[in-house]
């Protein structure tokens, strides 16, 4: 419940706007007067900030984001495949500022859960009553020998959209016909489970039109992957002989790379390629580690009714950084943010918690006019987040071309809506 004793009370008083002094603080006002600091302006953080401000226009909501612009990962594989531009993926925070959200462009370096402050690189500290952390993922650089941040300048990961996306697109464009692109797919859990395989499709689609003798080789740690049946069907239908997938059991796991010679080593084999895209294994964003929000899995445990960290009270974690049965996707982060906002409001207003409603959906574009999707509806059962039996699932295997086309059309409208909900 909102803690009106001790320092909390003073803090609340301290931030009452002058105009409100005539009114005695009541539980309902506590929400309007609270300070919430959101760390990370991506799919989770922006929705949290926006929905808080929408529900409580008086609340002091501060959004701290390291980059001036947000570059969306969703649809970034289209840029890699030469079908889209970075412009379409790039969004500014101006509209959020216009709605009264305090936008701070800086990097968060520490969160003090006892003192309830967030400190940025610039030196300033931001006190909070409730904190929301949605920092996305970081890479486990050590898992593939020879692959570090410097190596990613030669062998891009392109798994955080931005300059890395541009670099991979450029390498593919400049590659000679007859060349090979290697995609090294990471171990579970990682953001956007269909991402590496969608990428393979869109690179092959580019090859089909521009470099028809070229190939994509996916080296995988895993033995199965998201929407696998639908992907394999599309590979056979559109990219016969152009995409090869090597599972973990068939020596697919990449152990070491040498960026100088463009060599990729698995346990038994050496592969040479013209373009190498290493998607490293992943863990929670660095700030989650620094703030002590992670457990030994490298991700953040949370209470699914509130998305409050089970390690530190009054800090909520969203999106990719959490441990949850929900796939790490933009849609999940968006949906979690709204449950978290409702829980924060309920706490501040001293109201009972609502039953959380959580959904994930994800479209993948496998070729022009060929989209597929997956949906998951979750419910909380005895403290566990489980899928509603019989609901959700992937697009049908036997769907007509018209159906696949419709899903590709809806994918773009999805992107328009989810980004307008954030930045519009």
């Amino acid at each position, binding site marked *: 419940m909102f803690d009106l004793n001790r320092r909390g009370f003073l803090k609340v008083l301290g931030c009452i706007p002058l105009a409100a002094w005539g009114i005695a603080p009541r539980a309902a006002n506590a929400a309007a007067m609270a300070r919430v600091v959101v760390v990370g302006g991506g799919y989770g953080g922006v929705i949290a900030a926006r929905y808080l401000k929408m529900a409580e226009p008086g609340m002091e909501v501060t959004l701290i984001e390291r980059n001036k612009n947000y570059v969306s990962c969703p649809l970034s594989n289209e840029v890699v495949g030469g079908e889209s531009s970075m412009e379409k993926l790039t969004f500014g925070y101006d509209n959020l500022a216009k709605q009264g959200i305090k936008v701070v462009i800086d990097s968060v370096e520490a969160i003090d859960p006892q003192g309830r402050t967030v400190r940025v690189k610039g030196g300033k500290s931001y006190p909070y009553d409730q904190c929301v952390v949605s920092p996305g993922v970081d890479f486990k650089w050590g898992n593939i020998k020879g692959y570090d941040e410097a190596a990613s300048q030669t062998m891009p990961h392109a798994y955080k959209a931005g300059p890395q996306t541009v670099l991979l697109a450029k390498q593919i464009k400049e590659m000679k016909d007859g060349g090979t692109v290697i995609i090294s797919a990471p171990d579970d859990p990682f953001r956007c489970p269909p991402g590496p395989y969608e990428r393979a499709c869109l690179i092959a689609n580019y090859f089909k039109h521009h470099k028809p003798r070229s190939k994509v080789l996916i080296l995988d740690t895993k033995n199965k992957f998201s929407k696998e049946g639908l992907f394999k069907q599309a590979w056979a239908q559109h990219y016969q002989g152009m995409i090869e997938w090597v599972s973990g059991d068939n020596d697919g796991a990449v152990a070491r790379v040498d960026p100088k010679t463009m060599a990729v080593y698995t346990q038994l084999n050496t592969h040479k390629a013209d373009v190498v895209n290493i998607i490293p294994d992943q863990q929670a964003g660095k700030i989650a580690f620094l703030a002590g929000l992670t457990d030994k899995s490298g991700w953040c445990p949370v209470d699914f009714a509130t998305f409050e960290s089970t390690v530190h009270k009054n800090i909520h974690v969203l999106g990719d950084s959490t441990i949850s049965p929900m796939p790490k996707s933009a849609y999940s982060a968006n949906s979690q943010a709204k449950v978290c906002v409702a829980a924060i409001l309920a706490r501040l207003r001293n109201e009972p918690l609502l039953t959380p409603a959580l959904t994930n959906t994800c479209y993948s574009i496998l070729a022009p006019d060929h989209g597929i999707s997956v949906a998951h509806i979750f419910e909380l059962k005895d403290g566990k987040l489980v899928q509603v039996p019989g609901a959700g*699932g992937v*697009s049908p295997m036997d769907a007509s071309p018209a159906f696949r086309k419709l899903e590709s059309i809806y994918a773009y409208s999805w992107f328009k*809506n989810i980004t*307008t909900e954030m930045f519009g």
Partner: protein
Amino acid sequence: MNRSMWIGVLLAGGIAFSVPAHAGDQGAMLGNTCAGCHGLKGASAGETMPIIAGLPRDFIYTAMQEFREGTRSSTIMGRIAKGYNDTQLAAMSDFFASQKWVAAAQPADQAVLKRGEKLHLKRCEACHRDNGASQALDMQPLAGQWAGYLRIYMDTCRDTGWKNRHPNAMTVLCNDLGAEDVSALVQFYASQNK
């Protein structure tokens, strides 16, 4: 905070949003899960995704049940609707029905508007009153819905035999209309952006 204070805050901040969502609202909790696809509170900005903000409550409720049972065809809504019982569907239907209908801001092809209007008056106005804006009999308004979506509704019905609840769909929407008629009609509805 009382109502007059809210108004004060809204005026002072120039905030464009209407009444703040109450935390105690399970309908909003459920409805918010749809927004990633259908837009903030159902006001779709994607030109093929239907606006569901401000649709008649009973249409949403019945359509969701039909998606769930498979009597209304869909690419993805069937898989989603299976996640909810009737109580939940009722709550989210109330939530969307209580939002304001905001017509899509979309250009309309002026060249075909006359033809669209003529067709509409002759064949559609009898039910879709008020140039398609009417919500009488719990019908979805056509005026101001995304043309991209109206077109998909009509095309899937004609080309793919998709199931919906349109009266005499095969005659009214399909056999009697050519592709150009469909274009003219949806452009006409797009121009009726109220």
